[in-house]
Structure formats: C-alpha cells, structure tokens
C-alpha cells in the first residue's frame, strides 16, 4: 500500500484531473491518459470505501514507556 494514494490524496488527484480535463489546452493524447488515470483512481477509491475495514483499538502506555495498541474489548 506504500505507493497507493490515501483516499484523500486520491480525491485530490481526481479533482486535478477533472480540472485539467476541463481546461482548453489539453491535448488529445493527454486527455486520454488523464481519463484512464481518472477512471483507475475512481475505481481504487471506491474499493477503499467498500473493501477496507477499519479497526477499533485501544492505546495504552505513554511517550516515555512507549505506546501499546491492542484490540479494544
């Protein structure tokens, strides 16, 4: 997942792509590339929403003794 954008960054990039696609001076070649990237990002973000399962954890410890994260309940 390191190289994958976060949901927020994905949406930001999508915003840029839509903006760019709406501008006058985009070349045909670029517009196809942007469209392809955009469709992939939409797909990726949708999967993030539907497939990623957040977890509930408990934080214990402190900055001196170190933090510990364990399942909550």
């Amino acid at each position, binding site marked *: 997942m390191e190289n994958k954008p976060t949901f927020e960054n994905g949406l930001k990039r999508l915003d840029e792509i839509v903006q760019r696609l709406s501008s006058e001076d985009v070349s045909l070649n670029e517009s196809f590339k942007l*469209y392809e990237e955009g469709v992939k990002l*939409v797909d990726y*973000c949708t999967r993030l929403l539907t497939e990623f399962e*957040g977890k509930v954890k*408990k*934080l214990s410890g402190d900055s001196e003794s170190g933090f510990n994260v364990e399942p909550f309940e």
Partner: protein
Amino acid sequence: MGEAPLTISELTDRVKDLIEDSIGVVNVIGEISNYTHHRTSGHRYFTLKDESAQLRCVFFRWRASSLDFDPEDGMSVIASGKLTVYKPYGSYQLDVNRLFPAGAGALDLAFRKLKEKLFKEGLFAEEHKRPLPEYPLSVGVITSAEGAAVRDFIRTLHRRAPWINIIIRPTRVQGEGAAEDLASAIEDFNSYEKVDLIVITRGGGSLEDLWAFNEEIVAYAVYNSQIPIISAVGHEIDFTICDFVADARAATPTAAAELVSYDKSLLEANLNRIQTDLFKSLVSILDSKKLRLKSIADHRAFQKPINLLSQSSIRLDHLSERLTEVIANKMEAKRVRVQSLHRQLKAVSPKNTLSRGYSICSKEDGEIIKSSSMVNIGDAVNLMFAEGKAKAGILETKEN
C-alpha cells in the same frame, strides 16, 4: 411592680449589643428571595431562606460593587457579613459584605470566570483553530471505556465510514483526576502521532459531572494539540470550556462521528459523479477537437487548393470543350479539303477523260503506250474505254 420598665429603645439597644457582640461577622448559606435592587440608592435588599427560617439582608451600594455575578431569586448563595439590629423596625438583618454563589451557582461563576480569562488569553480565537482533515483514516478517541458515548461514536462512525481506524484512549471523564487524565491523553495522542484527528467526548450530565472539561489544564492541552480536536461533551445544551477551545464542537458523540467523516453513500455518489464528469470531459474534448478540426478545414487557406482545383477543373472543362471544338473544326476543314481533293482528283481521273471519248491503250504487260515507237506491227494491245475494254492489233506505225 419590680424594676422600672425599659423603653423600647433601651431594650432594642440591649438586643442590638447582644446580637452584634455575640454573633458578629458570619457566613450564612441560603436561597435568595424577594431580591430588589433599589434604583436610587443602589442598595440591594433580599431575604435568605431555607426550609424553616428566613433572614433579611441588606447589601449596600459601596459593598455591592464587588459583585461578580447577578444574584436572583432562587439562587443559592453564601453571604458574608455582620448581623445587625435595625432599631426603627426592631428587626435584625445581615449587613452583607460579600456575596458568593453556592453549589451549581459557584461552578457557574467559576465557569464564566475561566471562560473570560481564557478568552482574553486567546484560547478561543478563530484563527488558532485548525481545519479538520476532510478524509481522516485514523481517529483518536478520548473518553470513558464504559458508557454509551464510546459505543455511540463507534457505531455511528463504522456505519458511515467503515474504513476509518478508531484508537481509543480510555480516561476518567469525571471526578478527581479526570481533568489531568484528559489532558495527558491529548498529549499522548500528540506524541503517538498516528491519528489524523482527536475526538474528546462524553455523554450528558450535570455541570458538576462535566466539570473536568471545564478545567484549565484541559483547555491548555486542547489549545496546544498539534492534531485537530473535536469536542463533543454532554448534550446539545451543554457547553464546556473544552468545546470553546476545540477546533470544532459537536453536540453529542453521535454528532462527532458524523462530523469526522463524510457518509459512505455520499462519497460513493461523489465518485460516481467524478467518473461521469471524467467521461463528459473526455467527450467534450473530443467534440471540441472535432469542431476545431472542422473549423481549420473550413478555413480559407485550406479552401484555396480546392478553389484552385475547381478552377482548374473548370479550365480543364473549358479547354476540353475548346479542344473538341478545334478538333471538330479541323476535322471539318479536312473533310472539306478531302472533298475538294476528291473532286480535283475526280477531275484528273483518266476515267473522266475516257468518258469524253478517249481510250487508253496499254501493252499486254499493262504499260501505257505513249508513243508509236513503243509498239511494233502485229503487237496486241489492250484498249480501255469509259465503258468496257477491247483487244486490238497494230497494223501500222508512224512517227508523227
């Protein structure tokens, strides 16, 4: 009769001395009733009472200036002053020196004083408030591990945004040590660093129950947090200092979960819309390129060759017509010439001569005889007339 009777003044003086010497300055707690602020004198008059007794009080203008709250009927207060006797009425009353709110009133006053202090220090300043991350992936929650608040928060957030990690830091949320707990939990999340947002929350309760969230130590911890904080303490009507300092306030734990993230269905709808936009943009780019291409093609510059071509074509047509015409003319001329030649030819044809009565005489080998020297007597010759032929013999020759 025993002793001589006392005058009223004498008796009242004795009561006055007795009361003022033996009781003197006291602190007394009770509920205010019949509170009046005398308009011209500026003195305040009221009665303090409990279930079974009441005490008249006077708060003179020059002392009342120390008031830092507005006393009103029903309010529980502690009055500090000297018990005195008012001779004209033969009554005793409390000459109030200081008045303090008691119970909830005291907390209320403390709340307002701290609020004012922190306001002056800029802890509530709008420009200090950090924006909330739009799409957090990890949320730190500071709350009691028990109780409905944490359950409400988790349930609501999981329903709306199931991808978000929730990290709970359980703390005491009321009573001794709660404020210190809350403050250190905020600091801990800041050193832990792995949350995008902190939610500090607890369910509703009395002012006393929520008091930890009104402590200075919590206010400063919230103010100094590098991570944005949503405060959701109590119910809609409950405001705490923590709410004022936090970057955002939610009325309830459920409302906090709603504030943390967009709803899943909304995000999905947004993504769908973006996809549609992408497609529309692409189509519109293609359309505009096509239009541009057409407009370029329609440009005069590109029209020229076509013009030239069509002009050439017209010219070609024209030429070709001309050519046909010329050829036809030439043909006609030739035909006329051929006819004329034919006529001339006909004119010189021996047949014409023959028809005038001449005949052609040729040797048997076909050679035309032009001189008598070409034949000898006895030779056979061929004669050709205009109509028909004949064979003849030479009888005689002469040399002219």
